[in-house]
C-alpha cells in the first residue's frame, strides 16, 4: 500500500524545504520504504499539485537542472536584500573636509585643498567623491601640471536636500558653534578653545547672520558689495 496523496504532498513539500538543495523525482521516491514507495508518476503528480498551491505566494516550486527546489519569488528580492544589507561605513574626516572645501571654495584644485588642510589629499578620496558623483572636474587650471579643478554637482545638492549652494550654512553659521558644540565634543575637540573663539567672534557672527537672512533685494545689494573683495580673494 502506498502512502496517501495528501501525506505524500506534505512529505515532498517538507523534504524539499528541508533539503537545502534540489531533489529529483527519483531521489524523492527513494526516501520511502519499499512497501510505501510511491510511483514516479505519483511523485510528479504531487509536485504538480504543490506547484499549483504555490501560486500567488511568496515562494514557488521550480524545476532546475538537478531537480525540484523552492525559490522565493523575484518580487520579494528587494526586501530580502534589505535583510542582509551591510551597514554603511562612515566616510573619513579627511574625505568630509575635502568635500566641504570643494563645496565652499569651488572650483578648487587638489593643491588648493592640500594648502588649506595642510596635508596631502589621498587619491582615493577624490576618486570616491567622483564615483559618488558628488564632485566633478569642471576644468583645468592654467598652471604647470594643469591640475583639475573640482566643483560640486546637482547630485551633491540633492543628497543634502539643497536648492543651491547658497542654502549651505554660511561660514558664520558654522562658526556659531553653539549648535555644534555637542558634535564637536563628540569628535573630541577641545571645547574650551571653541568657547573662547565663539566669544571673540560673536559680533561678527551676528552680522553674517543678518546677511544670510536678508531679503532678495538686500541680497542683490550684498552681492554687488561682495564683488570686489571676492575677486581679490586668493586662498
Amino acid at each position: 500500500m502506498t502512502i496517501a496523496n495528501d501525506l505524500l504532498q506534505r512529505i515532498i513539500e517538507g523534504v524539499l524545504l528541508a533539503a537545502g538543495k534540489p531533489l529529483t523525482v527519483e531521489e524523492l521516491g527513494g526516501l520511502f520504504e519499499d512497501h510505501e514507495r510511491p510511483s514516479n508518476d505519483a511523485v510528479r503528480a504531487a509536485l504538480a499539485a504543490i506547484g499549483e498551491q504555490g501560486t500567488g505566494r511568496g515562494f514557488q516550486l521550480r524545476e532546475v537542472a538537478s531537480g525540484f527546489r523552492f525559490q522565493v519569488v523575484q518580487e520579494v528580492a528587494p526586501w530580502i536584500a534589505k535583510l542582509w544589507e551591510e551597514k554603511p561605513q562612515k566616510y573619513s574626516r579627511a574625505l568630509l573636509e575635502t568635500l566641504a572645501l570643494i563645496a565652499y571654495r569651488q572650483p578648487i584644485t587638489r593643491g588648493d585643498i592640500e594648502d588649506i588642510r595642510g596635508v596631502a589629499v589621498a587619491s582615493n578620496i577624490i576618486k570616491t567623491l567622483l564615483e559618488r558623483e558628488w564632485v566633478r572636474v569642471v576644468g583645468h587650471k592654467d598652471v604647470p601640471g594643469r591640475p583639475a579643478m573640482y566643483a560640486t554637482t546637482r547630485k551633491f545638492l540633492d543628497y543634502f536636500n539643497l536648492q543651491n549652494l547658497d542654502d549651505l550654512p554660511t561660514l558664520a553659521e558654522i562658526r556659531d558653534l553653539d549648535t555644534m558644540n555637542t558634535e564637536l565634543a563628540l569628535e573630541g575637540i577641545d571645547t574650551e578653545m571653541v568657547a573662547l573663539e565663539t566669544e571673540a567672534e560673536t559680533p561678527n557672527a551676528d552680522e553674517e547672520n543678518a546677511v544670510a537672512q536678508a531679503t532678495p533685494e538686500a541680497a542683490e545689494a550684498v552681492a554687488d558689495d561682495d564683488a570686489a573683495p571676492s575677486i581679490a580673494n586668493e586662498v
Partner: protein
Amino acid sequence: MNSEQQPIDPEVATEILIPAALHLREMRQSSAQQGEMPFAIVQGKAMTELPKDLYIPPEALEVFLEAFEGPLDLLLYLIKRQNIDILEINVAAITEQYMQYVNMMSAMQFELAAEYLLMAAMLAEIKSRMLLPRSADEEEEEEDPRAQLIRRLQEYERFKKAAADVDALPRVSREIHLVSVDLPDLNKTKPEPLVDLKELMVALADVLRRADLFESHHVQKEKLSTRERMSEVLARLSPNRFTPFVSLFTAEEGRLGVVVTFLAVMELIKEQLIEIIQAEDFGPIHVKAKVA
C-alpha cells in the same frame, strides 16, 4: 564522559552489564564471611582474588560505572531497583549495597571519582549515627543527616527527570527542520556611506579653524552662488572654441542671475581660468577656457 557524544548507551549498561555486576555481587554476598570477602565462588571455591579470566571484563565494569552520573545517581539506581520510595530508604541496607559497588570498583583498581568515596564516607557516618543514641542537644544543633541525604536525592532526581524532559523536547535537526529555499536574484549593492550635513559642517569648521581661515573676511563674505556659477560657467567652456559671452546669460534667471554670472566670469578671469576676447570694437565678446 564526553559531553558531545555519549560513548556508552546507558541502556546497555543497565540492562546487561549491571545485572552482570549484580550477579557478581550476589555471589559474593552469598559467601560473605567475616574477614576476607571472596569475589566469586568458582566451582564451589571462594575466590578472594580476581581471576585473570574474569567474566565481567574490567571494561564492562568501567562501562557500568560510566552509566551513572555520580554517587547520587548510583544511589537512586539502588533505591529504584528495590522498588522503594526515596522517602522510605533504609540507610543501612543502601549503604551496604553502595559499599559493595565501591569496594568492587576499588578492587578492580579503578580510579573512582572522589565523589564516590566521599559519599561512601557520608553513608557510613549516617549509618553509624542511626545506630547510636543521641542526646537532645545534638539533635537540636545538627540537621538529621538522613533527611539531608533524602533531600539531595530528591533534588537530584528532579533534575535527572528535567534533563530527560529537555532531551525529549522536539529540537532543531531532529524533529524540527528549518526551511531553506533558493533566493531570487538579489542584485545586491554595497550601501554608500551616509553623510549628515552637520557632519560636513563640523568637518569644515575644523579645517577652517586649523587653516585660520575664519580670520579671512573674504571667505566670510563670499557668496557661494558666485562660486557655484563659476563652476557652471567653467564646465560649459572649452579651450578649443570660443563661446559667445552672451550665451552664458539666461534671461529667465532675472537680474540677480545675470549679476551672479557676471561676477563668476570676472572671478574666473581674475583667477586666470578663462580668456575673454573681443575681436573688434563693439563686436561680439567670446570666452574660452584657458586650459581644459
